[in-house]
């Protein structure tokens, strides 16, 4: 029985657990290029990160905003699309391929596409806005519009994932409850609200937990679209930790920040996991 998990465990231990230990060690030391002694400084790095106004005032709010908006957006859109596709219609195959498309697109490519479309001078979005008589918007100059673009990109990328998982669950639902509901005279909305939705609860919860944890650590699209700008106002916690470690070369502060983020996401994950277990319990 143990033999079954040994390869997986070895990989996990060497390439995830060991690095975390190294990182934790570095976060308690003064670990920079110019200090070969790597002096032990206790919690000083954590104190510095937690009292950095950029970290608690901009980075954490951005991260939570991104997480909430992208999970909600993806869930609602994915559920709607799955309900729409869960029937037969002409051109179904083409539509399904189109909806799967964003799932294959590398996030970096999606980020490049959106940056081009929202280019302030030549982007198609501003061309269309001018054509209908609106003022062109310099999208990546403001914090609000930059965040909106990043979130929209993420929702676009991940909606298909929600759709596939929810659609798969819809296909395996037993037909009897719906038939019973229809015989009792329930309309489409009531069938959805009181039968489909409760039956889908376990899969929806799984989607939310997985995506929330992933969204918390977003890096690639933010990095490619804004690099954390304008003026570091759209940095998320992964970007902040990366910049500390590899741009400003404060390896100690970078690891400390990344572990603060890990602690936060653990708490979030634990809360969500309890919700998940409860939902699965109810469905039994």
């Amino acid at each position: 029985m143990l033999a079954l998990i040994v390869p997986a465990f070895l990989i996990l231990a060497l390439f995830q657990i060991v690095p975390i230990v190294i990182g934790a060690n570095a976060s308690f030391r003064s670990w920079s290029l110019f200090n070969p002694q790597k002096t032990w400084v206790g919690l000083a790095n954590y104190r510095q990160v937690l009292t950095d106004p950029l970290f608690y005032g901009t980075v954490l709010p951005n991260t939570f905003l991104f997480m909430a908006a992208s999970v909600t957006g993806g869930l609602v859109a994915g559920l709607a699309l799955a309900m729409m596709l869960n029937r037969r219609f002409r051109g179904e195959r083409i539509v399904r391929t189109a909806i799967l498309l964003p799932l294959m697109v590398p996030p970096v490519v999606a980020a490049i596409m959106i940056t081009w479309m929202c280019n302030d001078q030549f982007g198609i979005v501003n061309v269309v806005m001018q054509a209908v008589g609106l003022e062109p918007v310099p999208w990546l100059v403001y914090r609000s519009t930059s965040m909106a673009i990043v979130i929209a990109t993420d929702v676009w990328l991940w909606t298909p994932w929600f759709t596939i998982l929810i659609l798969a669950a819809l296909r395996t639902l037993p037909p009897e409850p719906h038939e019973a509901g229809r015989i009792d005279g329930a309309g489409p909305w009531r069938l959805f609200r009181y039968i489909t939705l409760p039956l889908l609860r376990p899969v929806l919860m799984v989607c939310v937990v997985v995506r929330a944890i992933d969204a918390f650590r977003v890096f690639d699209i933010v990095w490619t679209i804004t690099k954390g700008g304008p003026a570091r106002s759209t940095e998320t916690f992964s970007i902040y930790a990366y910049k500390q470690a590899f741009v400003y070369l404060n390896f100690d502060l970078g690891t400390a920040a990344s572990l603060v983020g890990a602690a936060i996401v653990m708490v979030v994950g634990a809360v969500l996991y309890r919700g998940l277990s409860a939902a699965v319990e109810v469905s039994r």
Partner: protein
Amino acid sequence: MLAPGWRRPFFGLAVAAVTLLMVFPVAWIGLTALRPASGVFYVHRGTEFTLGNFAEALAKPEMKASFVNSALIATFATIFSLAVTITSGYMLSRFQGATASVWFALIYLFRCIPYISWVIPLYLLTQWLGILDTYWGLLLPHVAIHVCFFSWIMKGFFDSISPDLESAAYIDGCSRWGAFFRVALPLATPGIVALGVLCWLYTWNEFLFALILTGSRTPMLTVRMAQFVHETGIEWHLMSATAVIALGPALLVTLFAQEYVVKGLRI
């Protein structure tokens, strides 16, 4: 079930809108890639088209190598990840007891830890092991990324296969391994193939690990492209051409395996 008559036009409109929303950005970058440098700033008007951008984009330094590297890493990461998580997922599904619960808890815990928390020190570790900026230095961390989530998913695949089938195989004289290879594994194959396709795409698309763990010796496509944005921010025609080529293999894989992906996840 066909949509009832009066709702049909509305339904058709909604379907068309959604399709457009999903396809438009990709189509737009494709169109941009076909415009010559002179027409790129006004993609929506003008009729000159060219295929020259693709050749020019591929001629950029490190570009061809980065395509090859990304494809190789994606392929081997998929093989290794599936190999180690099939057995791990099977164990989680079929065995109860302390070891299984500890392993499951470990997987959930480490799945939650943000990548950035271990990829920063992973830079030091791979440097110390002498595999920074090599294939192994990126491949093994990629397998580590997938261990947790895939074990979880694989558990789901095996959960949906009744253990009674394996019991029947024991009665017919199969060993535990025999039952696993002859009964459980073939039944789980559609799911595993689907997961393999997704794994290939995740690895091809991955950015953060590639950014930190590779350099000029093993350039990776996503990193190269992101640099491109900031180095040559104005050469949109070349950038689009590169993006289109980057989409190519992923597009093929999923078009080719689309039914499989949907079927596999339906289990």
